[in-house]
């Protein structure tokens, strides 16, 4: 219990003090997580909508595979991306191992199945309502995907949020492909891991509290947006 209150005070002091190293770490965490969420959504939302809307051969197999990928251990993703980006690997020439770009790649791959699966679910539910009207209007497949994604934008915001939460809390894969390099690829989660193994538990807890605060704030924002939208759009 002492550790908990000590860490809480430490966390507040860190935040209030605006410690530069801390700010760097938080900023980097937000950047890589937001970037991977964005890329995963850009690819995953239309993909999920496509699977929902268009019947094709092997569709059920795709859905089963997607759901299976949800349980993919993140360290495995980290290892695979590491092998891919290593100098000895196929994409080694890019030289992006141990950079934030590598972290974004790993996190994007990690949350992509989640985005596709959730988008598919939402679009599938909505498609039953929209299908006949859109088909009557002669809407093309691409347009139908775009229309549904836009109409469901508030629900899909929660998908994006779930993806962000997942990305922001990833440790193992980020450690492997990023290397946890001080000032370069050290994010909140890997910093917490480092401080914990150093035995500096109050600092680790402090960082952890900040991370929770960030995610909470984002959740609150999305919630507020949804409330507003429900009142406005119905």
């Amino acid at each position, binding site marked *: 219990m002492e550790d908990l209150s000590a860490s809480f005070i430490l966390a507040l002091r860190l935040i209030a003090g605006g410690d530069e190293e801390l700010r760097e770490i938080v*900023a980097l965490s937000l*950047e890589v997580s937001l970037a991977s969420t964005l890329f995963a959504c*850009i690819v995953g939302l239309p993909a999920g909508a496509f699977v929902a809307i268009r019947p094709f051969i092997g569709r059920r197999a795709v859905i089963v595979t997607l759901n299976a990928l949800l349980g993919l251990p993140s360290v495995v993703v980290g290892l695979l991306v590491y092998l891919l980006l290593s100098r*000895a690997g196929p994409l080694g020439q890019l030289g992006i191992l*141990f*950079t934030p770009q590598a972290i974004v790649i790993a996190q994007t791959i990690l949350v992509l199945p989640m985005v596709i699966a959730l988008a598919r679910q939402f679009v599938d539910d909505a498609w039953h309502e929209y299908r006949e009207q859109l088909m009557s209007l002669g809407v093309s497949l691409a347009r139908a995907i775009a229309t549904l994604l836009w109409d469901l934008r508030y629900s899909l915001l929660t998908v994006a949020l779930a993806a962000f939460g997942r990305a922001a809390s990833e440790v193992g894969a980020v450690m492997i492909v990023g290397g946890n390099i001080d000032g370069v690829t050290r994010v909140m989660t890997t910093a917490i891991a*480092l401080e*914990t193994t150093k035995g500096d*538990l109050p600092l680790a807890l402090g960082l952890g509290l900040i991370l929770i605060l960030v995610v909470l704030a984002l959740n609150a924002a999305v919630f507020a947006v949804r409330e507003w939208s429900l009142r406005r759009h119905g």
Partner: protein
Amino acid sequence: MGWNIAPFIRRLTVTWMVAAATAALLLASAPVPAQDFITVASTTSTEQSGLFKHLLPEVKKATGIEVRVVAVGTGQALDMARRGDADVVLVHDRAAEEKFLAEGNGVKRYPVMYNDLVIVGPKSDPAGAKGKDVIAALKRIAGAQVPFASRGDNSGTDAAEKRYWKAAHIEPKGSWYRETGSGMGATLNTASGMNAYALTDRGTWLSFKNRGDLVILVQGDRRLFNQYGVMLVNPAKHPQVKKELGQKFIDYLLSPAGQAAIASYKIGGDELFFPNAGSGA
């Protein structure tokens, strides 16, 4: 005024604009461009001792090189170098380093500094291990079958520990011997939580804040000295290795200025690393 392009196109444009903006943001946030940095593979215990935080700014001032340290276990550090993912290796396992050289992966090995290992354990010392003799201490710990936390992760510290057990003619087995498979700090956490003995480097111990009931019990045995060696990854095998910058970094470490920088790192007035370049160690 209204848009003249269909909302569909408009939405697509917005999406791509946002994507481009983020990509730009990410690129902008990327560290200072590629040229003047090197990747050094080193060990977690070295990182956790805090040496790099102290030393790297000095390196930057003296040479202008940004050093990026990826801290993993010794085994993984050497493996990283083998794959060409690092320019320089700085570890503390002479046998593994010699093997690395023999494989043709490194150019030359230079001794840089040493620190020492110590055995920590509960203040009450149930096994009676206290003293200056590490082998005798381990024999007593095994005999008393009191909990001992080992790294078991193919690191330099772990390799040293296995050598001591071998020298004591003991194969540590049983529920009292716990292999954590993790770094020095994590192992010390476990030891602290279990009130167990552990072999650790002094550096990590001095920075370790979660000591619980543990204190240093065994130190000063010459066999506990932990020699660090630095090697440039062989550019003949890996052409993209930054050999000039890497060599410059190594030269600095071995220079009087570098050696002094190493010696000046202290925790609570205690020096952690003892520079010994050129000693042939």
